[in-house]
């Protein structure tokens, strides 16, 4: 897993609550069997004026110049500012892969959907949840100040920039996982004996769980 420690980046304000994973990466791109190749199609239906299909050359597509990601002042942004319940909807991890591949390292919003949050953690995308008023103030500040950047310091749990500074909460374990970029599967496999013992016991308690149906 990719680790996250400190990051400074341009803030991109994506206004609107309940941004769902169907918007983050539309379904036609889920046909891929790889983990890469999603960055050009992040927010596809919002970024482009034509209908996107897999394998299209982004340079030949019609760009929606009004969409925030396409505004020159936000080019190269790596901190996404969003509203509440970001990432709701489908479990597609492709949403996280697309955000990372586009260049986002961190998303700041009042709240995140559960499965999306887990997927983000597994891939080293930092989610920072801040109070609704603080996020609103950040939106105003971003709109008013071209080039507004934030520095996110995960070990210090501090997010700051342009005279703004606040602490954010994160579960210590999640933080440790992110900062160290630990291999999630390896972490569980440290308990391989416990899993084996548990499985044996479960087989005894609930043998029907282990019955395979006749083919």
């Amino acid at each position, binding site marked *: 897993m990719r680790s996250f420690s400190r990051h400074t980046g341009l803030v991109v304000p994506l206004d609107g609550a309940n941004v*769902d994973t169907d918007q983050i990466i539309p379904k036609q791109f889920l046909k891929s069997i790889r983990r890469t190749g999603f960055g050009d199609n992040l927010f596809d239906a919002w970024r482009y004026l034509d209908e996107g299909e897999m394998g299209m050359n982004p340079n030949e597509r019609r760009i929606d110049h009004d969409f925030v990601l396409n505004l020159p002042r936000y080019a190269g942004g790596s901190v996404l500012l969003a509203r509440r319940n970001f990432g709701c909807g489908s479990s597609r991890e492709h949403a996280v892969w697309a955000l990372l591949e586009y260049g986002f390292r961190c998303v700041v919003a009042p709240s995140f959907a559960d499965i999306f949050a887990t997927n983000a953690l597994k891939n080293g995308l930092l989610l920072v949840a801040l109070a609704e008023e603080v996020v609103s103030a950040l939106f105003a500040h971003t709109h008013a100040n071209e080039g507004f950047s934030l520095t996110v310091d995960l070990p210090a749990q501090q997010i700051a920039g342009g005279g703004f500074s606040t602490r954010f909460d994160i579960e210590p374990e999640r933080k440790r996982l992110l900062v160290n970029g630990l291999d999630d599967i390896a972490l569980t496999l440290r308990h391989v004996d416990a899993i084996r013992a548990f499985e044996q016991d479960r087989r005894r308690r609930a043998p029907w769980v282990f019955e395979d149906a006749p083919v």
Partner: protein
Amino acid sequence: MTGSTLYDKIWRDHAVAEREDGSTILYVDRHLLHEVTSAQAFEGLALAGREPWRPGANLATPDHNVPTTNRAAGIGGIADPIAKAQVLALDENCKRFGIRQFEMTDIRQGIVHVIGPEQGATLPGMTIVCGDSHTSTHGAFAALAHGIGTSEVEHVLATQCLAQRKSRNMRIVAEGALGRGVTAKDLILAIVRAIGTAGATGHAIEYAGSAVRALSMEGRMTLCNMSIEAGGRAGMVAVDDTTIDYLRGRPFAPSGAMWNAAEAHWRGLVSDADAVFDREVALDAGAVVPQVTWGTSPELVLGVDEAVPQPEQFEDPAKRELCERALAYMELTPGVPIASVPVDRVFIGSCTNGRIEDFRAAALVLQGRQVASSVTQAMAVPGSGLVKKQAEDEGLDEVFLAAGFEWRDPGCSMCLAMNEDRLYPGERSAATSNRNFEGRQGYRGRTHLVSPAMAAAAAVAGRFTDVREML
């Protein structure tokens, strides 16, 4: 000491150990796989030189990407080469890793969340996961079931476990009797409207109350299916006679002495009378009318007798903005009765409403009636090959065909439009699926979620209409 909730009990029954990061290692009894979220997980597994921990725990089937016509042609019948590669990848991975798959041409193939219960692969007290958010469906059997991402799919394959944090407990109690023509779908849409799409975030939901007890297993699956639309990862219903009766004799369910032992255990899968929930929501089921969503979020719902709202009706500025955006995308005018809005395509199917009772309910409305000429296409897509066969044995296919519906082969189809079944820009659907997000059923398409009976009624009327007047 206070009692335990159903969720607490299943959690406790599967907790293996605490990991250094504070999460609990939870043992996974059943893992369902499909073509869209598994390829990268199998690849990761192979790259790390790992093997599936317990191949027998897994059951796979292609569903999201398969065409719903010409099924006999199998994978060769998939026109889109990229989609075909994905279905082939599932096939190869299942063979390579020794995982049971219901292949495209197998009559047991279908949407994962339809086939699990149908086969009895979904059993009470199990932990069940799948790389799909609607895994919550299986909670209808008092199982702890939820959707996971691809990294977690790999994790489950490699360890037979999931690293999890315990959710909070939430109970939604629906008392009273649903009226004639009002279904589980209407009940869950009313619930999502009441609590919002983030209403149950961080919670495992238990549905209770006399209205829930009165539902069939299929109705309970519809209810639990859309828990994710309310923000909950899992939704469940306690075991009762309805649960037990449904499972008896299913292929993966135990039999003989083992059945008796299992049943005795399952009967205890209810929340204790003195269990405490972190949140409780009550709903009067008798007051629920047939529902229609009008916007681009499943919480933007109306009773069929209501009108499209004005943004000013919402006090919360975020909701007002959501409403404005939805009105523009859906091209709807505030104040217009939802029952006057015309539909272009009708879709009956999906893991929410693609089971036999759903087709029976729709056929009851379609019997002796015709799809309106203004409707471009009306599609009935069974949730599995076995649902399709059962419907045909009952003669339902003839009712659909006579009314002007297409009778398709099983798959996710126009629920998410990864195959050819879709809305075209500007078109409007009446759909029995679960999501009305922008572009969900096709680029710039507009989706209205309804029950199967309401979808059939809309097909006949050419617009949304109160199905109760047709029963």
